[in-house]
């Protein structure tokens, strides 16, 4: 168990390090001289050189990388050019919108998809199965931001049940805030649920074809018991893999869907930062998201070991 777990964690940390080198290379090295960027086109050579010395931009790249990395690790993401506040504060404020949104959508899609997948697999070939999978086929093809627009039209413009956009703010109460997250999370969850339902169904069908399932039935266990006690647990591994991959798509989706609902999350922050060429904010958001994706993948790898105890002893 320990060796499997520690190997996964070490790989995760190494991946994160490599990712940080990419982000550093792309956002710190490629754009050119940050001192000149900060001071503008008309800055004198002396002023540029003075700022370079002061900020340490003259040091060799490798040293700059390590001091940048050290700052990140202590939570110092630098200061936004446009907002003049520490990037970490901006991120903290915005993540209070994006993270609940991603988590609610993930929960919603899991709650919808797994029962549907199990149901469809247990009644393979029935009308219910065909209908559910037909809907899932369409659901996979629907772009979440378009679905979001349709939801806005139906529930906000026509029925006037829910807000069309904006965010109440957690400090103004739990319910108003949740209310502004309902439509966005439904929009995000539907396409994800479609994929998840299909994976659950096909993975369960694979397992149901195995010899040990026939054995279990032969020794007199009911279909139900075999399905829930023998098949489901074994069918979970591919489902977990997809769940992990979906989380990264959900984060990306969150960034896009936030724009439909004018939610003040990480997505709006990063797009505003792009238009204002506030690279340090872009860098901070990208690092946070990449770290989340990697952490989730490590967690998924670790959860394999809980579902499949054989992994504990391997390697």
């Amino acid at each position, binding site marked *: 168990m320990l060796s499997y777990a520690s190997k996964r964690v070490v*790989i995760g940390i*190494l*991946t*994160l390090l*490599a*990712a940080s080198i*990419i*982000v550093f290379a*792309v*956002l710190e090295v*490629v*754009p050119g001289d940050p001192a000149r960027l900060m001071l503008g086109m008309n800055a004198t050579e002396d002023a540029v050189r003075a700022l370079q010395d002061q900020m340490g931009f003259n040091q060799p790249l490798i040293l700059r990388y390590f001091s940048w990395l050290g700052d990140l690790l202590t939570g110092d993401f630098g200061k936004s050019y446009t907002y003049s506040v520490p990037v970490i504060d901006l991120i903290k404020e915005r993540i209070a919108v994006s993270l609940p949104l991603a988590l609610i959508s993930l929960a919603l899609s899991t709650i919808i998809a797994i029962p549907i997948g199990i149901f469809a697999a247990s009644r393979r070939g029935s009308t219910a199965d065909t209908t559910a999978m037909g809907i899932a*086929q*369409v659901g*996979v*093809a*629907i*772009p979440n*931001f*378009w*679905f979001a*627009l*349709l939801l*806005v*039209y139906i529930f906000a*413009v026509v029925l006037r049940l829910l807000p*069309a956009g904006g965010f109440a703010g957690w400090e103004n109460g739990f319910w108003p805030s949740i209310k502004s997250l309902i439509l966005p999370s439904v929009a995000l969850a539907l396409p994800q649920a479609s994929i998840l339902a*299909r*994976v659950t169904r*096909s993975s369960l*069908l*694979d397992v149901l074809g195995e010899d040990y399932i026939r054995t279990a039935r032969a020794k007199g266990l009911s279909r139900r018991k075999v399905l829930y006690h023998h098949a489901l647990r074994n069918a979970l591994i591919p489902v977990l893999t997809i769940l992990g*991959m979906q989380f*990264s*798509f959900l*984060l*990306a989706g969150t*960034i*896009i869907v936030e*724009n*439909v609902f004018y939610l003040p999350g990480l*997505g709006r922050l*990063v*797009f505003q*930062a*792009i238009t204002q*060429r506030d*690279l340090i904010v*872009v860098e901070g*958001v*990208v690092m946070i*998201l*990449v770290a989340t*994706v*990697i952490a989730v*993948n490590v967690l998924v790898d670790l959860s394999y070991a809980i579902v499949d105890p054989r992994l504990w002893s391997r390697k």
Partner: protein
Amino acid sequence: MSRKFESLIGNRSFLIGTIITLIVALMAGLSFLWTPYSVSALDIVAKLKPPSISHWLGTDHFGRDILSMIMVGSRASIFVAFVSVAIGAGIGVPLGLWAAARGGIVDEMLMRFNDLIFAFPALLSAVMITAIFGPGAVNAIIAIGIFNIPVFARVARGAALALWVREFVLAARAIGKGEGRITLDHILPNLANILIIQGTIQFSLGILAEAGLSYVGLGAQPPMPSWGRMLFEAQTMISLAPHMALFPGLAIMVTVLGLNLLGDGLRDFLDPKLRYMR
């Protein structure tokens, strides 16, 4: 062969998928020769008109014909998706084949490289690229293409590993063929099916990704019409002209659905073993 062909035509997913895909391709092709209206012609008098005889899918806030814009917009979607699949397959497949042929440290490094790229969803790469070089269709292609590399590498490697233990590879080794020769002569031809299927899937994901990127302004730039951009413009008009939001989204959905059905049908036909995987 003819019997096989019959079973392919008898496959409902394949048939519907092919018909939809052909219609979309024809529509894109036709847009180069003819569209009902010019997409650059503004007609403020006829703005925000719902669907009618003269404008089948209505007009937008500048009075442009939505059907014409959808036709021209399909070019951006198809072009971006196609080139990014080509980039992904062109780099990913050789990498996967190499890893499968060599094994050991090369293989291990490739898998770690895959993990690394998977940590950057296409949207994040697009965000970084755009932050530095500015938005545009080319950057969307690069971002989606980069994300396709590990997908193709993984698929090619997995399938190639299974082939390397087969007898015909052993026979090829016995007559003295090297790793490279075997890969080209025996492994790659046997991977064609699985790569075509994956290509179809990535193509449809590429259409969705392009739409998402151009919706948030990181894709094709105006005046070049694109489906995602049309949805962005529709957003502020949603209460006045919901048809502006309806039709471009339907175009994306139908195209992606067609490609997915085509992919499913091809998989059932070319690789029955894979039927329930995905």
